[in-house]
Structures are given as C-alpha cells and as structure tokens.
C-alpha cells in the first residue's frame, strides 16, 4: 500500500509542471482566443487605417490654420458661416440620394431581365454587366471625361446629327451635376444588379406560382412577393451604396474638380481642396468630419429596420 502512495505522490509532482503548460494551452485553445488571434490582423488594420486617422482628424479639426494653436470649435463655426459649405452639404445630399435611387432602380430592373435569361447565356450577361464595376473608377472616369469633352466628344458629335447641342457637359452647373451622377450610376448600378440578382434567386419559384394561382398579376407579384422578400437586401445595399456614394471622391475629382464655381463639390473633394490644395489642413479635417453625423443617422434608420425584420422572419 505504502509503495503505491509514494508512487502516486511522485506522479502528481511530475505532473504539476505539465499542468501549467496545459493551462496555457487551454487558454490558447479556447475558441474565443483563436478567434481573437485570427481577427487580430484586421483589428490592427482597422486601428491603423480607420480609428487612428479618425481620432487624429478630430484633433486636427481643433487647430488653427498653421496648426500651432488650439481653437476649439472655431473651425466649425467658421464653416457654418460660409456659403460654399452649405452648397456642398446640399450638393452631396442631392448627388448621393439621386445616384442611389437610380442605381437601385436600374439594378432592380436589369436584375429582373437577367434573372429571366436562361442558363449559360445568363452567365455571359452577368459578366458583361459587371464590367463598369470592375474597371478601376479612375480609369473609366477618364474615358467618360473624353466622352464629355465639349468640342470633340462622341456625345456632342452624335447629338449634332439631331441638331442638338453642343452641350457643355462639364461646364454648366446643371449638366456637370447631371454628368457626375450619370457616371456614378453607370459605375454603381452593377453592384445593385448583382446583389438583387442573388436575392431574386433566393425567392422560391413556388411562391410566384402560388401567387399566380392566387390571382396576382406581374406587378402584384413584384409588389407583394419580390419586394417583401428582398427588403433586407434592398435596405443593406442602399445603405452601403449611400455611404460609398456620399463619400465619393474620384469621379468628381477627375471630371470637374468641383467646378464650375465649386457647384459639384462633395464633402470629400471639398475637404481635399480646402485641406490639401489650400493648405488649411484643420479646416479640411473639419469638413470631412461632417460626413459622420449625416451617415450615422442614415445607418441607424436603415439598420434598425433590418434587425427588426431579422427577428420576425
């Protein structure tokens, strides 16, 4: 008996350092720990590229032009008094809302057409229709810039046959605003198309058959079946697109640089002009910060609805 006890004691002693190692291994082996380490690169990236610049711009926005003195909310009150600022607010809203509405509408309609194309052909069409979204916007916008050229462009040349024009596509406030929206819709509609197409495919055919038997015509089928079934996708894509469109930079920068007379400036392009080109970095940071509250309100409204429906569905 005694031998056995000693044996057990030694075993226990030998085992104890092992247990410490096992503890560490347990911690490392926990699912939450593994998950943390797997997401760590992303967390670091977000910290470096999003959080740090965001807080840094908050800090910058409270400095004077030379960045030597703390001025508190001075930059903000200065902005509120400038007419250009309110024009940029208005133009950003008009641009984002109009562009998103048209992108969603065109995406929805084209998704229906593509959905009804059978099999292999559908893949071809899907690929072709995605092209605008795949080309880097800086490149494709340059092509548009040539198309919009007042004297030698394809658009005005074609229109001349109908006795129309020449239209100052980028030289007149209305046409310039129209043009940047047009290019943005051209660029962004394929994203809606692909999202809506996926959503359409997830609606069971039998629901449409049941609706057809229940007496629904095509419009009622879209209104009572398709739209309710796609509500969440529509809300999320709209929100996503609203944010991206609102913060658009490249299209306006390349086509008009904000002109004529700053009438096509968006927050991002104006912040760039004020902050970088006019060397007033604190004021530029201040302009860019104005996007946050506006987008936050939109995000809260749309996402609140999504989570509510998520619960009931």
């Amino acid at each position, binding site marked *: 008996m005694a031998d056995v006890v000693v044996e057990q004691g030694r075993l226990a002693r030998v085992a104890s350092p092992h247990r410490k190692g096992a503890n560490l291994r347990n911690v490392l082996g926990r699912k939450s720990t593994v998950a943390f380490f797997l997401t760590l690169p992303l967390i670091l990236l977000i910290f470096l590229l999003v959080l740090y610049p965001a807080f840094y711009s908050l800090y910058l926005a409270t400095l004077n032009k030379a960045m030597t003195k703390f001025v508190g909310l001075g930059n903000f009150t200065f902005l509120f008094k400038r007419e250009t600022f309110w024009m940029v607010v208005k133009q950003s809203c008009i641009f984002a809302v109009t562009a998103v509405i048209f992108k969603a509408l065109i995406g929805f309609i084209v998704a229906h057409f593509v959905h009804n194309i059978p099999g292999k052909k559908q893949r071809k069409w899907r690929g072709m229709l995605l092209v605008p979204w795949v080309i880097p916007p800086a490149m494709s916008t340059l092509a548009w810039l040539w198309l919009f050229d007042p004297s030698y462009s394809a658009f005005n040349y074609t229109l001349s046959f109908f006795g129309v024009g020449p239209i100052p596509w980028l030289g007149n406030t209305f046409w310039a605003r129209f043009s940047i929206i047009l290019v943005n819709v051209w660029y962004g509609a394929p994203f809606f198309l692909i999202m809506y197409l996926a959503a359409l495919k997830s609606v069971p055919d039998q629901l449409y*058959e049941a609706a057809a*038997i229940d007496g629904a015509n095509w419009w009622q089928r879209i209104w009572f079946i398709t739209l309710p*079934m796609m509500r969440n996708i529509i809300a999320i894509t709209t929100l996503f697109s609203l944010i991206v469109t609102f913060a658009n930079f490249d299209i306006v920068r390349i086509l008009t640089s904000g002109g004529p007379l700053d009438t096509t400036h968006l927050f991002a392009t104006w912040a760039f002009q004020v902050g970088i080109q006019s060397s007033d970095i604190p004021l530029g940071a201040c302009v860019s910060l104005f996007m946050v509250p506006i987008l936050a309100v939109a995000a809260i409204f749309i996402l609140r609805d999504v989570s509510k429906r998520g619960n009931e569905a």
Partner: protein
Amino acid sequence: MADVALRKVIKRYDDVEAVRGIDLDISDHEFIVLVGPSGCGKSTTLRMIAGLEDITGGDIMIGGDVVNDVPPKDRDIAMVFQNYALYPHMTVAENMSFGLRLKHYPKAEIKARVTEAARLLDITDLIDRKPKQLSGGQRQRVAMGRAIVRNPKVFLFDEPLSNLDAKLRVQMRIEIKKVHQKVRTTTVYVTHDQVEAMTLADRVVVMNKGRIEQIGTPNELYHKPATRFVAGFIGSPAMNFIPCRLEDAAGTLRIRLSDRIAFPLPPARAARYGALPRTDKLLLGIRPEHLTEAHAHLEPGEETFDTVLDVTEPMGMETLVYFALDGTPVCGRVDPNAGAADGAPMRLAMDLNNMHLLNEETGAVL
C-alpha cells in the same frame, strides 16, 4: 365547382416527352388521385391543369371551357404545394386571404371566410402567426386553408404530405379526406405513395412513363389490374410474378410453375384461360395475402406446396415470409403463430381463385 377534362394532352420539353397524350374525365365533386413513380408525368399533368406549364398539344377543360391559354389566375383553381409555398412575410390570416384581397372582396366577407376555414382546419389560434412559427403539419393546414377560402372550382394537391413525418402524414391524410367530405370541391391529388392514393381517392389514375396505365376505383385497381405495372405498383408488399406456362393433363388445365410444382386451375379460371396458346410465356400474378400457411382443410382452388423459407419478417398481426420458387423470389403472408422461421421448411397454400395471369412480353393481364 366543376368537372375537369383532359383530351389528348401532350407535354414535350425539347426532346423529352413528359406527358404522352392523356385522356381523363374528372366529374364534379370527385376526388381523383394521380399516382405513379417519379418521372411518370403526374406532377406535370397537375401543373398543366393549374396553368403553370404550357401544354404542347391537346385540350384541358374546366367546367366545360377550354382553358389551354387561360392564365392560372383566371382558371379559378387553388393549389397546395409540396413545400406549402406560404408567403413568409405574411401572417396565417394574410396568407389565407391573399387571393381574396387581390380580387377586392369586401373586408367582412374575407374575415368570415378566413374564420370559417380556420375553424374547419382547427387553426383558429394560429391566425396571427407567421409561417416560421408553425410546425410542418400546421403549415400544411394553412396551405389548405388558403385553398379553401377561395372556394375555387378545383383543388389541386401536389404531393402535399411528402414533407411530413410518417405519423403526421396518416393524420393529415384523414384531415384531407374530412375536408373534402365537407367542401365537396373537385380535387386532383398527386402522390407517389400508393397507400395515399388508395385511401383518399374516389378514383385512382395510375401513370407510368407519361401515359395512363389504368383508371379505376381503389378496389378495381387492386383486384382487377389491367397491366403488370399496375398489378406491381398497387399493393404492399407488391404482387409476386412467377414465370409459368399452361399445360393440359388428364383433361384438366394446369399451370406449371417449376419442374416439380404444377397446380390444376379452378374451373372458372380454366374456362377463362382455356383458349390461350400453351406455348406462351406467362406470369402468374399472386398477392402475398393469397400465399398463406396451409390449413388442414383446404378451400376449393387452394393448392399446397412445400418450400424452405429464406427470410421471415414478423409484423405483429402477420408474418411476411420470403422464399424462392425456381429462382424467382416470392413473398407470402402467414399467421404469426404458423411457426415460420428463417431457413425453416414450411408448407404453404396458394389461393388460385385470386390469381392473375399475365403475358410476360406485353405485360397485359389476361
């Protein structure tokens, strides 16, 4: 309510002919079941009646009117789908009233009809729930409710019980029968389950490879199958088919199953089969319940033989016995107390009064 008629209806997909010329008359109030294996064209036929599939040839009539080119919404039919196809974003009441709301019925009438249907189907408490919150059986009831409130000319059921578990299926089968007894709407019901077909139908339509094999009451199909396919498809366990030939011996007509087994035919059968050429290759069709343990006293037409059982399956009220006759597997049904055991010899009796004789080549029942 109305009768339904199909005249030489054909459905072709590219080069596959799914339905090959079907003629069918369904009278008012009748409960018709289309039954057959997968791919026999039964669902396609139903969907053509519904208007969900175009027809390639022939005519479909509902209430005497040709509806070939009438869209589903104008055919005044209601359909219950296999996966229920309830609108997930609508409540039970909204699901049921959808068709009526589209047709702008007065609110009071919609409410009355939904309440009545819910009461009939015993789903009154569920009326404000969403389909997600319902069990399979409850969803099935709602799908039926959606059909009932419309008060259509014809009900169409497309394998409505296939997604339910076995117990619920039996229960819902009875519910469907009860509902039909109350509303008496002409019904076309598609299933691959011959038990469902037999229990529900006024008349069963057995389909195979896009054609109708036989139309008849459940009893007719069971006792007087027209073809080998029907004989083998209806009934579980299936009818046995044993190769055989006719021979004359000592002035009586005999049926020879193997070198060692030959039975004299009962007089009625002998008269019926007497004119057949003795050289034809034939099949003896005999249902398992007509292959029982041999009693001491044999009825006229019963013949006994000895065999060795391969496998036995005790089912409680009966025992299924499997053995081979000259290499052909055969199934019989014996009393659980008859002493059947795996590998044991047993003396069995074949009731030739209930035999069928089939032509092996054409499959026709003679």
